[in-house]
């Protein structure tokens, strides 16, 4: 059969892959997009960001209803219909998946469903339902993403030991659920199951949950977890799991203390691994690092000059918006534009309760690198809007370069932090100073005011807090 000829082939239709395919098509390239799953959208849409946020939104009402009693409105116990919840969630995924397929069609991006396998640096073989197809391309973009890691010690072949993918299917609400790993996936899904009624135990190897976030941003989440979960066990290692009837027997070690416990289900969230296996990369010049991620340069070019790699498979932060940005970088490079080699700000959002979000430099990172920064904080207990929402458990902080007053990083914990962080991204990317942020009028009463007031804290004149110590240049200015 005559091989299909194209300028660009994109392997994997997740947020990196379809963004790359569409952008390349928008720039006038002939593009083939290869995806092994029926529904486009990758992990993000099918078993990641979107379904988890749909579930988190659904269960939010349960928590709201509970706390509502104090505000004078009470509800009966909620009745949970898992089938409807699943169906609603699925309907979102279908809508979005079809949306992507429609957008591909309108751009004349040819979508091939099937597993891709590199025959050589310029040929991809695709196992479609109609048999093998070969694609000759000028440039290939690998965007096959990652999948949850499942250490062999936990892999019992028992459906009661789940990864995030299975947990999102919401087959049942187990009575006792063990979440292995206190990262953002474990904490988000733990929140879903705990609110639906599971007794959730989270086990974390390190001495804190939510690795990467500043400790003061983690604290409110930890407080919530301690109340909503059965237990959060830090510095604890899961050694072994075994099937025990309809339960899982888990052996853990905490400060030399070994315990054995029974759980109805176990959710393993101990990281993610790249989907590089069986891609035929050995037939190309593509190289991988010791963790299995594809090695790329600043323009996302692999060791094979004809092949780029973007998103999770290229390592770094495993985030959809990072993948989408890398899609632009790679396609710009392919079309001969000077593409972004410089660092851009990748915001991070954890959809726990409350949400945690940050962008740019974190306080911990500054400390680690020995950077001289000043940190301004505004507690939400001083925000009128936070109180009307009955959510004073938040904090907004700015990481500031003292000499220039430039905002290097923003961190927020609190209800809706994920929506608020974008202003921080804009500030950091635009090289804004704390003065810029303080001088922008923010509408009252909103949570966004906390960003402005936080900048005012830096100068020592935030209306709704009192700062003993002035860090900014207000005094100097007054003296002039």
């Amino acid at each position, binding site marked *: 059969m005559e091989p299909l000829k194209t300028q660009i082939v994109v392997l994997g239709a997740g947020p990196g892959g379809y963004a790359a395919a569409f952008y390349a098509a*928008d*720039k*006038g390239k002939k593009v083939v997009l290869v995806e092994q799953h029926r529904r486009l959208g990758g992990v993000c849409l099918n078993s990641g960001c979107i379904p988890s946020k749909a579930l988190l939104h659904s269960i939010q009402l349960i928590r709201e209803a509970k706390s509502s009693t104090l505000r004078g409105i009470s509800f009966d116990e909620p009745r949970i219909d898992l089938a409807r919840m699943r169906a609603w969630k699925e309907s979102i995924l279908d809508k979005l998946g079809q949306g992507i397929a429609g957008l591909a069609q309108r751009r004349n991006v040819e979508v091939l469903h099937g597993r891709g396998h590199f025959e050589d640096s310029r040929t991809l073989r695709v196992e479609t339902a109609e048999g093998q197809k070969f694609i000759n391309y000028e440039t290939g973009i690998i965007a096959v993403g990652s999948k949850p890691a499942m250490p062999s010690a936990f892999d019992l072949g028992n459906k009661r030991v789940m990864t995030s993918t299975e947990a999102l299917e919401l087959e049942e609400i187990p009575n006792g659920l063990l979440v292995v790993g206190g990262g953002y996936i474990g904490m988000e899904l733990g929140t879903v199951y705990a609110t639906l009624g599971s007794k959730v135990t989270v086990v974390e190897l390190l001495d804190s949950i939510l690795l990467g976030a500043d400790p003061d941003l983690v604290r409110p989440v930890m407080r919530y977890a301690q109340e909503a979960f059965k237990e959060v066990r830090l510095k604890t290692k899961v050694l072994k799991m075994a099937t025990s009837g309809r339960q899982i027997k888990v052996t853990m070690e905490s400060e030399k203390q070994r315990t054995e416990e029974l759980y109805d289900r176990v959710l393993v969230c101990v990281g993610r691994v790249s989907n590089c296996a069986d891609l035929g990369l050995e037939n190309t010049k593509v190289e991988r690092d010791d963790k299995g991620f594809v090695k790329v340069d600043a323009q996302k070019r692999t060791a094979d000059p004809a092949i780029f790699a973007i998103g999770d498979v290229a390592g770094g932060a495993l985030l959809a918006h990072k993948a989408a940005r890398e899609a632009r970088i790679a396609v710009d490079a392919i079309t001969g*534009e*000077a*593409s*972004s*080699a*410089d*660092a*851009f700000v990748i915001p991070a959002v954890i959809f726990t309760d409350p949400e945690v979000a940050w962008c740019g*430099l974190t306080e911990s990172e*500054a400390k680690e*690198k020995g*950077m*001289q*920064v000043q940190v301004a904080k505004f507690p939400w207990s001083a925000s009128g809007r936070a109180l009307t929402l009955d959510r004073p458990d938040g904090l907004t902080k700015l990481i500031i*370069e*003292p*000499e*220039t*007053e*430039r905002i*290097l990083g923003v961190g927020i914990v609190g209800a809706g932090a994920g929506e608020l962080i974008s202003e921080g991204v804009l500030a950091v*990317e*635009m*090289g*804004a*100073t704390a*003065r*810029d942020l303080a001088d922008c009028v923010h509408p009252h009463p909103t949570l966004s005011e906390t960003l402005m007031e936080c900048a005012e804290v830096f100068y020592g004149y935030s209306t709704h807090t009192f700062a003993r110590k002035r860090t900014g240049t207000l005094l100097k200015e007054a003296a002039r």
Partner: protein
Amino acid sequence: MDVKLPRLGEGADSGIVVNILVSEGDRIQKDQTILELENEKAVAPIPSPVSGTIQKIHVKEGDEITVGQVLISLVEEEAAPQVSATGKPETTFESSKGLPRPAAEAKEEAVLAKEYRYEAKSGVPPPASPSIRKLARDLGIDLTRVQGSEPGGRITLKDVRDYIQRLQQMAFEKRPVSREAFLRPPESIDFSKWGSVTKKRMSPLRRTVAARTQEAWSTVPHVFQFDEADISALLEMRKKYAPLYEKKGARLTLTALALKAAVVPLKKHPIFNASLDESTQEIVYKEYYHIGVAVDTESGLIVPVIKDVDRKSLFDLSRELGEVAERTRRREVSLGELQGGTLTISNLGGIGGAHFTPIVYKPQSAVIGLGQGTLKPVVRNNQVEIRTMLPMTLSYDHRLIDGADGARFIRDFVEALQNFNEENFKLEGK
């Protein structure tokens, strides 16, 4: 509107069109290169100050054009946001008159711009919006070199544009041929391989001397003319008047006498008192006679200038020379006293040695090197006599001066020393 050749920098008033990169009827963007202009220094792109459609091109390749000449006529475009093929609005650049500013205005900044380097204690890159960073990437501009004008040092489009204009200007500026570059061999030699060594940094003065002599040596085609002057009579007179001068606080040195004598051939051969202006290809004749005197100091050679030698008496010259030389040895002369020389005299006679070949002190056109006067048997009036002969060398710039003139000048200088008028020694009313 008509787009004219902007003034691009000193000594870049004209050039030859080497490449026209647009055609009539073309739609061009603001800052798009219209043509490339070559002058003695470089080839430079000439950007369009506005966006528009070209109606007529007024120059052709090979034309020599000057500042203000009309290059193209174009119909300007409304400054509406451009919509690109991808359907996204492109960045619209804020309007500006576009043409680079006059050289004089930006010159001082240009010097600063060379030095500027953004450094944050936190080690983060300079603040600039993503669109500016993208622009810098496209143009290959290192933003750490661009001085931001906004709070926190934020870089705006205008800052980048100013920076580029300064770069362009610098590209056209007279370059005193990278001084350091000459001095640096490609790689360091490890002399300690062959025995023990001591290393010492070159002093700034040493580096200046090295750079200036290196530059003169590599740009000035030198001719060396040797001669000897019979200074027996001159020395007799000096012997006679020296005590008198001494009493009045002046040392009557051979250098002072040479200064006085040098004015004679300088006046007769004005080309030796002239300079070549390399950037304008003009010979500049000076109507003043300021003579530099090489002074050996502890840290190296310094050449202070004695002004208006022709208008000063031998006594005044002697006294000034002694005083200036002393201050020079103490490194107390001002920069002004080192500038403006029209000829230099280097007298090594006090130390010894005969002829040597001094290097012309650019932009002067000649230098006289004096050795040690020694007693020699010479034939005079068919008799062998013992006379004090002063060996001397005249080094001069062959770009300005030919061999015959060199010979004439040195003969006239020898004559001036040999027939030195005793009147010069007399102290009028002092």
